[in-house]
């Protein structure tokens, strides 16, 4: 319990991933919360990468974590831009209002 191993970090990142997944699945009212949950999931992936990089003494995991960071930043900017455009059209950020593709 007192020595922190790789499995602790893996368990932590899995729990973070699950919280993010629950945020997407359960919480279906707000698009902003879904974007925040995606950020949490990417953060969990980053913690996983860094943990493996540190415990395996390989620097490559941190390179991949930086690339995940870049993807998260680009995804956030485009997602929020889409959100702004959708809000201009429908005056709401509710998920159930964005059902135009359902036909």
């Amino acid at each position: 319990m007192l020595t922190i191993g790789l499995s602790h970090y893996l368990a932590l990142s899995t729990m973070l991933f699950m919280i993010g997944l629950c945020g997407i699945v359960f919480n279906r009212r707000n698009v902003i919360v879904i974007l925040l949950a995606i950020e949490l999931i990417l953060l969990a992936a980053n913690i996983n990468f860094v943990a493996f990089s540190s415990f395996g003494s390989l620097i490559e995991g941190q390179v991949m974590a930086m690339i995940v960071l870049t993807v998260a930043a680009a995804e956030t900017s485009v997602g929020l831009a889409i959100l702004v455009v959708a809000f201009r059209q429908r005056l709401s950020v509710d998920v159930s209002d964005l059902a135009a593709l359902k036909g």
Partner: protein
Amino acid sequence: MIEAVIFYMFAFVLMAAAAACVSVRQPVLAVLSLILCFFNAAGLMVLLGAEFLAFVVLIVYVGAVAVLFLFVVMMLDVRAPAAEPKKRQRFLRPAFAVVTAILFLEILVVVFSSLSASDVAPVIEADFENTRLLGQVLYTDYIYPFQMAGLLLLVGMIGAMALTLTKRKEVKRQKLWDQLDRRAGEVLEVRSVKTGEGLL
């Protein structure tokens, strides 16, 4: 010992902030707890010996992404909606609850069964310089992923601008091509005016 205490502190606050982030009703509070998440994740990365990445996480996430979220949340004037689950979504909730509970149990089993197992300690050499090590591989071995990441950021930037750019009708704009298309012969005329008389 002290490392375990620090790990559990960061991990507990990270979990609590993440749970608050997805469950809180007001979007501003959700974004603020996401910022708390990022701070604790950066602390965990420092604990893992990845200092450079920890500060990059702070700069990128807290400095750019969270501010972007806050800006959008404040600009959009989102009201906290009343919670009313739709009927056809209601059957999904028990299913996902069961799946989530099973996964959490699995995690607990993994954690408590691997405590006695010999986990390798993080390898931190005496002359371990995280930033130098990262820089040595990032610009040589991983130059193509690095460039692709830059290209991705460019695409994201152009996409965000192209999506949100609007032309307002009531604002008068300069029409550059109309101005450049004008010829002197079409709009100007030379007349000889007699002394003492006007053009008319």
